[in-house]
Structure formats: C-alpha cells, structure tokens
C-alpha cells in the first residue's frame, strides 16, 4: 500500500514542524522501514532550533556513535538568542499588558501606533520584536507561546507581509498545539486574506498560497468536529477546486473521503455540501488521468461504471489505505459504514429484486450481519415504504411506483417563482429606481 501513501506529496507543502506528526505517524504504520523514517525525522529536526530533539533522534539512529558537537553549540546559541529576543519582546509586552493601554487601543492601527509612540515610546521596530520572538519560539517548539506573541504582533503591526507571515505562523502554532477552534478561525481569516489579496503578479502566488492553505487546512478539517462539512464547503468552491485540479490532485482523496463521510449532511447544509458527492464524482472522473487511488476508484466504479464487484474490491483496498493515512485513519470505520450505505442505495435504486446474500457479499458482510444491516437501512431510509424483505426466498423486493407526472412538473417549476422575483428585484435595483418596473422579468424569447 506504500504506493498510495501521500506523505511525500504533501510534505513539500507543509511547514517543517507540521511534517513531524506525519513522520511520526508513518513510523507507526510500517509502510516504510522505521529507520528510513527516523532518518527523515532527523534531517528535518536538524534544521530547527530543537537541538535536543535532533540529538535524541541521532542517538536513536546511530546508537554507537557520538552525538556531534554542533548540537551542543546550537543549544547554547539558541538559549542566548532566546534570552535576547525575550528581553526585546518583554519591553513591548509590558506596555501592552498594561490595562490602561489595553483600554486606549482602538480599531485603527495607525492611531494605536501613534498612541504607543507618543506615550510609551514604542516604535514599529520594537513591535517587530514580538514577531521575531514568536517565530523563534515556534522554531524550538513552544507553539502556544508562539501563537500568543504572533497574535499580539498582528494586532499592532501594519506591515502587510509580516502580518501574513504571522498569520501562517499563528495557524501552524494553533494546529500544533491542538487548538482546533482557534485554528479554524485562523484558517478562515487566512483564506479571506488570500482570496482578497491583490498582489502584483499574483496569479501564480495566489495559486501557491491556496495550495498551501489546502494542505494545512487538512489538519484542521480532519480534527475539528464540523471539519468535514466545512472541508466540502471550502474545497468545492470553484477557486479551490481549480487549485486542486491544477496543482495538487492528490487532495482529491480527502475530498472524496469527506464527501463519503458527509453522505448525510446535517440539516441546513448548503446545497454545495448536499450535492457534494455528485460534484466530487465529476471531478474524480475528470482528473482520473492525473490521480487515482482506491478511494477515488471506489467512487468511480460505483457511480460511473456501476460495477459493484469492482467497487467492492476497491472498498477493500481503500480500507487499508484509509487506516494508514495520517488524516483519515480515525475515520476508517465511519467511511466504510457510509460507503456500504452508498453501495446499497445504488444497488436498490437499480434493482427490483435483491438477493440478501448477494448484497451482503457486496458489502463485505456476513449474511446475518447483512440482513441486520439491510433492515436498518430500510428502516431509516426513505425506501421504507417500498421495500419488503421476503424471508422465504431471502430476497428484498422493492416496489418503486413511478413518479406521477404532475409531481415532476411541480418539481421542475418549484423554484421558478423565487428566482423570477429575485431577478425582478435585481433589475429594479440595477436601474437604481430609475426604471420602477417591479416584478416583471424582462421577456427573453424562448427558443
């Protein structure tokens, strides 16, 4: 299953520190030799300000070698720098934490700066110290501390580039310290700023930022309670879907998994989430030549080819892939459950008489389990009225009365009134009252 491991593809889009959990997870899955993973971890750690950790890893890998001297030096250096940066930052922090100051601060950043400068002699450079200290703390693994400092910095600073950088830093810190609510909030603000940013020569930059955001957000979405729904909402919005298709098709796995997991969306979900599955299948089909794995293949076999046997096979493979995946590991059982439901739904819709034994086989279940499953399914789904189990022949019979014509006509015309009045208001607004034409939609010739 190693060929379906995405760690190598995802890592280039992650921060050094964010990669550690992935590697740790890899060392647990036995996909690769433990030693290789450890070496990778060591290489990563070398570049951070965590000499102890690196030295520890080193001695694990080469138990019979002396730990290089450089780590000790680095350690000293780190401590010194820490001291220096802390002193600088403390000066600012003292001022800000003063309740008087906290009261005096307003929305307007310029004004705040002026105020701080006038009363406490704080300059922009000093405020930047907050940023540097935050960054430094992050680099040696004190993530919650980093988050604090970066937050304060963001409140005060007017420097756009540093602000963005601080935003990313804050997000990473929140992710690593496991504050999912905060991270989610951070993610939203970051997304907003990326989408609204108008940098010079931006098309590519924006694409890069979005690609990064997509990867980072996986941490949040697969850990937050409502993450999956939000993931569908975000990833299926046109711009992010484009980004996935152009620069990182492997994200489709997570999109597909989320779509399956979110099979029964909570009430009040947006239409995008409700139709997620359909949309995802389309994209999976379109990008098939670029990327496929058992999870996308499962969807394809089920909904494009209607080959239930192949779908079942893919589902079996998907199970392994899922359990080994860093993000999806926890959701494996959930996924299988939902996938079974999808299979049986598709099966029931195309079949009139179903052999329970056969269906159970399709679902990778024993006949007894299968029967229980099917009964549950019938009970909780809307098929209840139409499906009956015939225990004598051990079959399910589904009677699907044809939809009456008037029903289809009503369905088709239901939304029209609302849309038309929407059009009307839009028109009257467009004319800025100049053309008070109320609810009349402009007549457009019917073909």
């Amino acid at each position, binding site marked *: 299953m190693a060929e379906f491991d995405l760690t190598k593809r995802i890592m280039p889009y992650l921060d050094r520190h964010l990669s550690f959990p992935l590697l740790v997870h890899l060392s647990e899955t036995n996909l690769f030799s433990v030693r290789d993973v450890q070496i990778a971890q060591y290489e990563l750690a070398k570049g951070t300000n965590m000499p102890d950790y690196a030295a520890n890893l080193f001695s694990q890998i080469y138990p019979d070698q002396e730990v290089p001297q450089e780590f000790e030096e680095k350690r000293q250096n780190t401590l010194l720098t820490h001291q220096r940066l802390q002193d600088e930052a403390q000066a600012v922090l003292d001022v800000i934490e003063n309740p008087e100051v906290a009261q005096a601060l307003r929305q307007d950043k310029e004004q705040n700066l002026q105020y701080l400068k006038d009363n406490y002699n704080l300059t922009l450079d000093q405020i930047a110290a907050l940023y540097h200290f935050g960054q430094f703390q992050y680099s040696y693994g004190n993530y919650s501390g980093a988050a604090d400092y970066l937050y304060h910095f963001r409140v005060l600073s007017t420097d756009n580039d540093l602000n963005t950088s601080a935003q990313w830093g804050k997000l990473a810190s929140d992710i690593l310290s496991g504050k999912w609510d905060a991270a989610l909030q951070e993610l939203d603000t970051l997304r907003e700023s990326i989408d609204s940013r*108008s940098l010079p020569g931006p*098309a590519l930059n924006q*694409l890069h930022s979005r690609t990064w955001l997509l990867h980072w957000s996986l941490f949040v979405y697969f850990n937050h309670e409502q993450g999956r729904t939000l993931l569908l909402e975000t990833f299926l919005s046109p711009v992010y879907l*484009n980004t996935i298709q152009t620069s990182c098709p492997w994200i489709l796995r997570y999109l597909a998994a989320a779509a399956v997991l979110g099979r029964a969306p909570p009430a009040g979900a947006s239409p995008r989430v409700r139709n997620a599955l359909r949309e995802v299948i389309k994209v999976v089909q379109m990008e098939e030549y670029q990327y496929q794995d058992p999870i996308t293949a499962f969807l394809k076999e089920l909904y494009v080819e209607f080959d239930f046997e192949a779908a079942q096979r893919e589902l079996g493979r998907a199970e392994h892939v899922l359990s080994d995946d860093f993000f999806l590991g926890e959701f494996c059982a959930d996924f299988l459950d939902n996938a079974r439901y999808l299979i049986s739904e598709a099966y029931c819709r195309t*079949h009139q008489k179903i052999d329970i034994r*056969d269906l159970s086989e399709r679902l990778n279940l024993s006949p007894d389990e299968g029967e229980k499953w099917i009964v549950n399914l019938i009970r909780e789904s809307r098929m209840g009225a139409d499906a009956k189990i015939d225990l004598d022949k051990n079959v399910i019979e589904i009677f699907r009365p044809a939809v009456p014509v008037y029903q289809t*006509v009503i369905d*088709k015309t239901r939304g029209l009134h609302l849309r038309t009045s929407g059009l009307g208001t*839009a028109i009257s607004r467009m004319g800025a009252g100049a053309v008070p034409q109320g609810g009349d939609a402009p007549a457009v010739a019917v073909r």
Partner: protein
Amino acid sequence: MSRFFRQADDSDSSESSDGEEELMSSGDEAPIARPAPAAKTGMAQFLAGGSSDSDSSDSDSDSDSDGQDSDDDEPQQAVRIMSAQEKRLVEMEATGKVMENALKINDWVAISNEFDKLVRMIQRQHNVSEPIPPFYVKTLISLENSVNNALAKEKEAKQEKDAKKNAKALNATNAKALTAMKQKLKKSVKEYETDMNEYNADPEAFESKYAALIAQSAPTAPTAGGAGQRPTAPGRDDEPGADFTNVVGKGGKAMHFSSEGILKNLQAVQEARGKKNTDRAEQIRILEKLLEVAATAYQRIRVLLALVSSRFDYNSSVATHMPTELWLAAQREVDQLVAIIVANPAYSIQEMTEDYDELKERSPEDPEEKGGIVRIRGSIISFVDRLDDEFTKSLQNIDPHGTEYIDRLKDEKVLYCTICRAQAFYESTNQDEPLSRVIMRRLEHIYSKPDAVVQALEAAMEVSEIKPNMRLASLGTSSGLIHALCVYLYKSGNSLLRTRAMLSHIYHHALHNDFHTARDMLLMSHLQESIHSADVATQILYNRTVVQLGLCAFRCGLIKEAQATLLDIFTTQRVKELLAQGVHQQRFQVLTPEQEKAEKQRQLPFHMHINTELLEAAFLVSSMLVEIPLLASIDSDELKRKSISKPFRRLLDFADRQVFTGPPESTRDHIMQASKALQDGEWEQCRDLIQSIKIWSLMPEAAGVKEMLAKRIQEQGLRTYLFTYAPHYSTLSLSLLSRTFSLPLRTVTSIVSKMIWNEELSASLDQSGGVVVFHRIELSRAQQLAQTIADKIGAMVEQNEKALDVKMGGTGGWGDRADGNKGEKRGEQTQERRGRGDRTRGMRGGARGRGARFAQGLGNEMSSRLG
C-alpha cells in the same frame, strides 16, 4: 537584406555632405562658366528646325516638337534613331532651356516646375546607371547662383519697400515658389556636391571625362548585360590603385581578381544590385570568383554576405520559387558563413553597426575596432529565414505526387542542419532575439513529425561539427527536445513566438496520443479567446492543433471529446481552407487575384497536410456513436430537432431519403450505412462496415483503433437497442443481451445500471431472474405538453438570469449585490450552475468550464481591485 545596403548608401552620401558651405561660397565663380551654355541653348532655340550641324542642336529640334512626351513615341518620327541616352540628354537640355527663359522674366513658379521635371529625369538616369551629364551639374550651379541673387534682390526690395512704399518685389506666389526652389535646390546640391566641385575646378576636364565615359559605354549599352560593371559615378573612376580590369564578362575577356581588389569589386557589385539592367547571374558568377580569391576572414565574410543575398535576389518575382541548385548553393554558403564566424569570434555580423569604410580591409588587430571585434553589417538570421521560406515556397509549387517533390523534401535535412548551426552560433554569442527566431524555425520543422523523422533529422545534424545545446541525443526523446525548445520560447519575450511555440507543443502532445496534457495546455493557454485577433498563419496553426487534438481523442477512444472537438471545424464546411490545405471554392463571391495569391502563399506544403478524409471519417464515426443512441432515446418529434452534430444529421437525413442504396463506395457511404445498421440494432454489420473503411490505414495504430471502435459499437449498439425496443418488452434477459452483443454479462449489467441510474431508462434489474424489468409509462398528450412547457419555462428563467448576468457584468453576479451574504451563495450557485451546464456539453463545454476555472481565479482579483 537590401535594407542594410541601402542604409550604407544613405550614410555614405550624408557623410560627404559636410562640404555644403564650401560649395555655397564656390558658387560665386559659377557665373563665369554660365554664359556659354546659356548662349548656346539660346541660339539653338532661334535656330529651331534649322541647320543641324551638331548632335545636340539636332536633338533640340526634335525635342522641341514633341516636348516632354514620353520617349516611347519618339522612334516613330525621328529622322535619325538616337540612342536612349542621347534622347534623355536632349530632353534634359530642353528643360534647361525653359528654365533659362523663365529665369529671365523672374518667373519662379515655372522654374520650380521645370526643375522638378529635371530632377525626375536625373533620377531616371540614375536608375539605368548612366553617368550624370555635365549639363545637369552646370544647371545646378547656375540655378544656385540665380536663386541666391534673387533672394538677395528680394531682401533689398523689402528694405526699399520700407523706404519707398512702392515695391518691385515679387508677388506672393512667386515668392513662395522661390523659397520652395531654394529648398529643393539645396537638396540636389547636396547630392551632387562632389561632381559640382569637380566641375567648378575644371569644367573642361569634367566634360571630356563624361564624353569619354559615354563613348566607352556606348557599345555596350544596348546589351543589357554590361551595365552592371560600369561604375555609377564618374567620380569614382580616378581612384588610385585600381589594379583590376573593369571588363565586361559578356565580352569574353578574362577577368582578373586579386585579393587586394576584392573589396572594390564587391562595392561595384553591390552598387549594381537591384538596378534594372543588372544581370544577376553574372553578378553571382563574379562573386563566386571573388570568394575563391578571398584571402582573409573579413573578405570572405563580406563576399559571402553579398553572395548569399544576390542568390536570393536572383528571382525577383514573389510567385515563383528559387531554383533548387541556387538554393542549395545558398544553403552551403550560409553554412560556410556560420562556420567562419564561429571559427573567428573576433568578427561579428550585426544588423546595426557603426559606419565603416566599405573599401578598407579590417582586422581585429586594428586599433580602430572597438574591443578587438570587427562588426560587419549583415544578418544571418534573415538568411536562415529566407532559406526556410524559399524551401517552403518550392514545396508549395512542386507537384506533390511527383518524384521531384520527394527529392526536394530530402533537402530538408540540410536545411535543418543549417538552422541548427545557426542556433548553435546564436547560443554561443548569446543573442536572444535571433536565437528565439531560429529556434522557432527549428521547432516548425519537427513539431508535426513522427519520432522516426525527427530522429533522422537530428542524426543528420549530429554529424556537423557545430551543434546547438539542445539535441535529441542529449535530451533522449523527441518530446524532450520539443519541450526544451518550447520552454526556451516561452521564456523569451516575443508573444507571437510564445503563442506559436505553445501551439506546436500542444500539437506534438496530441500527435503522441497524450490527450490530457495537450487539452490542459490548450485550455490553460486561453488561446481560444484571443486567437481571433492573431495573424492568419497562427490561426491556421491553431486550427491544425485543434484538429490534431480531436484525432488524438479519437485514437485514445475518447469518442465524446473527439466529436466535440471536431464539430466546430466541420460545421463551417470549409475544413480544407481552415487548415490551409486547399483553396475553398466560394459559391457567391469571387476572390480577387490578390486574395487568391495570398491564399496560395499560405498553403501548407503537401507533406504537412492532415488527411481530411481521415479527419472526416473520424468525425463522422464519433458523431455516429454519440448521435445514434441519442436519436433512439428521443421519442417525441419535438425534441428530435435538437441535434448534437448538424453535419452528421444532415448526411443521415439525406441517406434516409434515398430510395435505393447500393453497396457503399465512399467513406461517407460506409458510415451512413453503418449508422443505419446501428439504428436497427445490427451491430455486427455496423462494425464490419466501419472496419472496412480503407482510410483507417493512414492512422497510426490502425488495428488498435479498429478494435476500440468495435467495442464502442457494441456498447452503443446495446444502448440503442434498449432505447429503441424497450417499449416492446416487459422483461428482457440480461444473458440474452450479453449474447446478442457479445459483451460480458458484467458489462451489460453495468451499462443497464448506468442507464437506470441516469434515468435514461425507466426499468430496474431483477437479480434473481437475471432480467431487466421495464416500467413503461404511457404519457397522455396533456401530460407530455405539461412537461414540455415546464422545461421551457425553466429554460426561459435560466436565459433571463444569464442575460442579466451579462448586463450586470462582473463575475460575482447580480445575486451578490441583491442581498448580501445570502446573495453571495446565490452567485456561487449560478456560477456552479453555469459550470455544470458547460461541462455537460462534453469536451468543448469542459473547455469553457476549465477556462472559467482559471479565469475565476484571476477574475476575483480583478473585481476586488475594481472595487
């Protein structure tokens, strides 16, 4: 090329013009010389028609009678046939006389007119490369004086006017003419300054020299061949150190060229270039001789530059192509030139250089040369361009079915080598602009060729000693080579080259069955939006690329994509014209000759053609596979009018109307009969008909394609069968279907399930019985109508929304502004709806959907910036 030499000439004349002041002052002496010709011409006028003892007065009398008429009618009435030269002289003198007269009465308007005429005549004299007659110089000098005098007088008059209030000053028009005259005169004086100085110094000598010249050239004048060797300006004659004999080749006299005289010979040849009576073959011969004796690199470069351009000059007409031998010679010489330049990096050929003395031998050691580099005016890239163009032109003109065409095509190898050498040269000298041009040329030779041909070309290039960095040998595959070439062009600044490189790259991908990459590249380039404003050649390339993409999709078995891609070009019914593979016969309007000529020039050489019959077969077959099941699925006539592929539907309708159909002959017949068979559910017959089409043999991997088609026909046959015969069955055994269509049971189940899921077929599967159970609902007329109207209303609202979207502009849509947050979602929905609608329309739709994807990425930014 001639541009450069022309420049050289211009700068020469301006160089010599700084002695203008001197001339103005020397003009004072002119009156002394003046009376003589004035008296002479004056007398001749009074004696008009009288005794004709001298040549000149005799011609005067003639020209008096017919004035300034063109000299064509002269011979008819002339008593004695004068040489063309004499005639011109006579005309000139007549004009001079009129000027004299006008001068006497101070009529500057007349003088001005006459002077114009005179200048024109002199110009003509120039064109036939005859020496300037001393008469003209004389006139110039005298005129200059009189103008100066007149101006002085006028000034005086003005002063007097101030004093006396009555002025004998010139009237307004006259004054204006006088000033105009002054300007004109100044210009001509500048041109002939040296001659004038010479004349002023010694009028007698000047005239005698002219006479000698005339005498010398007189015998050769009638034979046009000799004109080339004659020095154009008499002034050049007395330059020292002329150790070559300036002889006429035609005369059969031996020619002596030595390395010292080369540059002078070269100069002579260059001056004769482009003139009417120059014998181009002769010139080429001289230059070849010069090349043999050329000793230094500098001389060789100079001679080669001249030689190659004169070879290109050989054919002046645009329509005909260059003879093959000449072309080959030129190609060899360009190679030689590049070799010399590469071997001697101290010499550099540039389009723009500082002026240098054409006659001086230069070498890098010369302290005058900056940085030890001798810069020579010329352009290798334009030679390469021209070679390539001439090659294409010759292929256009040769009958593609003869052996000559194939022989000519073999020359592509050497041409390709030359291009590669030029590329290597530009790579080594880091000249970006010509380098990208030459790379484009190279790319154009290989992008549409199969791997084997590219390998052959590259192998030929490997043999030469000068090689560019990008080579097949070093890059492994032809795709790698093309990629390297294209990437270079993408990075270069020229947007036209970039576009063309992009298209070639896509074409190459399509040729190698890499459909997805090619499609993505095409969509991401957004070329379909801007191609309408591109030049015709690029549009043709675009069409070729799209068509190749369609064929690629067909080969890969992506029938829907192939159909959608090829549909556009086939609905125009001008496939040949759009691909530049033949001129379209217009029914209602006739092309002007110019248009026709332009059209002809655009045509691609035969070996680059995409076979249109194969193209049509691919298109019609894919249309058949898409359209026939669709036709079968539609039961009301109302909907039948909507068709996916109009050209196919038209042919099908036509075939339906035939009372009697014989065995199929053409490709179309085959496909039409196959379509009918498919409609009847006889997929085997359909398959046989399609596979017996002969044109498939032209397609690479024909066997695989046929196999793929057979499979598609089976599947679509099953679908068609189900659509057509579903109303007549209540159940249908899956195994029967599987047997009938020779498909595995699993595939049948999969196809049927898909149809059920997509609600194309109202049926369901009965697993225990292994049958399809159909649920047929007969709709009443009213129900049918109700459904139709519901659909139409839906479509109308959709249309309205779209119209409003367009009117409001902006990407967010009107919903945004309508009701804030909720509206935003609406907007996105409409976007999605649009996207979905697009995508369902197959590949072209997908194209737009994709395009929109990228556009949105940028669009959001745009709108946010706009506010």
